[in-house]
């Protein structure tokens, strides 16, 4: 069985010495973030690989000022931004994107509740956030995902995105307003 290392179990800068372990440890988080940002499985897989490739090539420049996760997220955020801007004019690709349905995993994360009603409620809630996130600007969506998927705090998000702390707060606040409006609209 494959061992998934927990980030807390690894020492800060020495983490990069075993790069395979770094990949195993953060692959899921990076892929999840990219997938939720782009909603395109192929692009998410490619960018996840690119992210680790870039990280591997520039690992000697990592000074340990931020955590490895923040550093990797910064690379991923830049890759997503570049990809999104290069894809802006490709309408056909954009039309293809909704191939990812986050609500499809509702049954698996319904907190052990197996009743169809409970699964339906979970699906509805996830769907509301998912569609609200789709309508956000790129920056708003990025900070929302980093906060609520990657569980990063404002300072970490600022470090990962290169935004100022105040800018992160503004984008996150607006993103949350939209999400709340969507959730309340669903009820």
């Amino acid at each position, binding site marked *: 069985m494959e061992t998934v290392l927990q980030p807390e179990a690894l020492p800060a800068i020495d983490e990069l010495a075993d790069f395979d372990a770094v990949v195993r440890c953060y692959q899921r988080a990076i892929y999840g973030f990219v997938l939720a940002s782009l909603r395109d499985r192929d692009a998410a897989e490619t960018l996840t690989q690119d992210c680790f490739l870039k990280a591997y090539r520039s690992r000697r420049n990592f000074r340990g000022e931020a955590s490895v996760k923040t550093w990797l997220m910064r690379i991923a955020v830049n890759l997503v931004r570049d990809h999104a801007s290069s894809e802006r004019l490709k309408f056909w690709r954009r039309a293809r994107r909704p191939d990812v349905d*986050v*609500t499809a*995993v509702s049954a698996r994360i319904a907190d052990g509740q197996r009743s169809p009603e409970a699964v339906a409620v979970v699906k509805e*809630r996830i769907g509301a956030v998912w569609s609200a996130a789709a309508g956000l600007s790129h920056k708003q969506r990025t900070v929302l995902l980093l906060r609520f998927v990657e*569980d990063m705090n*404002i300072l970490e998000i600022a470090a990962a995105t290169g935004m100022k702390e105040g800018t992160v707060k503004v984008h996150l606040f607006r993103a*949350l307003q939209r999400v*709340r409006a969507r959730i309340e609209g669903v009820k």
Partner: protein
Amino acid sequence: MKEHLSGDQVLEWMMGLRDAECEAHLRGCPECVEAIGKVAAPLRLFGAAVMELGSEVRTRKRAENRRRSWRLAYWPAALLAATLLIFAVLPLQRGQRQAGHGVTDAAVAVSDEVLLQHVESELSESVPGSMEPLARLMTNETGRTR
């Protein structure tokens, strides 16, 4: 803090901007806890769903590796089978070719024999009387050169 948390304060709380006053209020106010939960719960589920989707990268990769390893395992077997097939088919073909050759050789030998007999019979045929001296001469000539 006696008043309930405002809508903005709920969002700030969720952003991680928490002060002691709000914290103290939440400890004794189920309404505000519920207000936070209404937004926080779907976001928590959403985060879990995305992470669940994130795990598919490993599943897909594992499935791909499994397919690749199967393909790798099949290669030597396929190579061996191809080699055996070649060794099995080649002698058969050679045999058929040889058998074919045998038939042709026999046919050629028979036709040669027929031809030789024909030639000999022609040679041994008596020539017209006027040509007899010439025929004798030819026989002598041939006998001398040999």
